[in-house]
């Protein structure tokens, strides 16, 4: 298995970006 630490910084930053966008969309959805 390839170690997780191989994930590049780009992938980490974009993962955070994806999570934040999905989170921003999910908050009103859950609140409704």
């Amino acid at each position, binding site marked *: 298995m390839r170690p*997780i630490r191989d994930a590049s910084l780009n*992938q980490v930053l974009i993962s955070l970006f*994806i999570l934040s*966008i*999905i989170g921003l969309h999910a908050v009103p959805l859950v609140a409704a």
Partner: protein
Amino acid sequence: MWSMYKDARSAGPIEARQTRLIGVTSSGSTEFLTAFQIGLPRGNGSRALPQEDVGRRFLRRATAICQAQRRPARAVCGDPRDEHHLRPDRQRNCPSKQSGTDLPGRYFTPQLGHTPVESWLEAWRSYWFPRAGTRVLGMTRVLVIGVHLLWFLPAFASLPEQINLLERNQEFIDPQLLIMAITAIVPREVFFTPDVFRALWLATMIAGALALFGFFTRTSLLMLALGTWSLIAHKYSYGDQHHPEALFAIFLLVLVFAPSGQSVSLDAFMRRRGHAISNNAAKEESESNMVMWPLKLAHVLLAMTYFSTGATKLLSGGLQWMNGYTLQSYTFQDAMTRGLPVGIWLSQHYALAVALSVFTILFETFFFVSLLVPRTAPLFFITGVFFHLGLFATGGHPFFPHIVLLMALMFFLDTSWLRYRIPRMVRAPAPVLARKVPAQ
């Protein structure tokens, strides 16, 4: 390599020419092999052909040696030389059981790992960052930016409309977040003037044209995204707010952070001709694991948007939303206001309104199934295109940006159709088919 060199030196004039070839290109193994393979006879190269001369034999042996050196001991997933990740029939037998090289659109299934956390991280990475050809994203860019530049910007954020809003309003009625941020830095009287907006609109169009052709692609995309965001945010800062452009605008920004210009672009063309703008070696690769995430994010956001609209209908109206009268009423109001004969016709057909209400709820609420069962995704995308076309015909709701996103997903999220070959029976030349016809 040295023994080959010695062999070549002791051989005749043909071998000597090939020796120079080795000397020039031995550092770049791909060109080296390609150059040698050109001279090879057809066949698997495992046996000497009767007419094989000294030069050809040399080429065959050299090629065999080089291929043996290049071939890994066993197939390794993720190795850019191994293309099994592009071939569905070989994925199941992947020897190292690595994820991250899956075809786009596979299940979000955690792989076996050392710990649960590692498994989920690996599943996350294999879902968002599979290795894929950059051509996919290049073609997506051309489709999306082309439609945006030629249709959406002139039609839905047109310069006359923007200037009209500026001239007829002294103040914003409900300024959007981006507009509030701009006015916090630059006073309204300075930035929000017709002259500045003419320049902004022109700059946005120029950036769009550069992004479409892929010249300084990501910089152009950033300029285009910022300009588009400003124009749309300004349009909706005077009380009348709609949302067809929202997801599309997010997708424009997302393209900036992906290798959108690595293929199908002037940048790539210039790089191939030896006039690269950037000296970043990573940009020379035709594959990347950063290609698919913009499309996957668009898919997820579309699923969340549709689920939100379906859930809102069910939460606020319950199952009564599907009683037919609701859709008849809404359609009649919109169609009368906008003069849409199809909508007026629909509003007079109760049974059809019930059927379309049920269809709307089912489609919107269960669109997310396309994420969980990727095989069904094309069906949802095609249905979505017709759903929005129907909305426009009956109610005048211009969700064309959603249609473009759905079509981009339909064509480029799963690109297995690119490898489709016409069945041999169909593509057989006419003389072959003619021979199969029994003689009369």
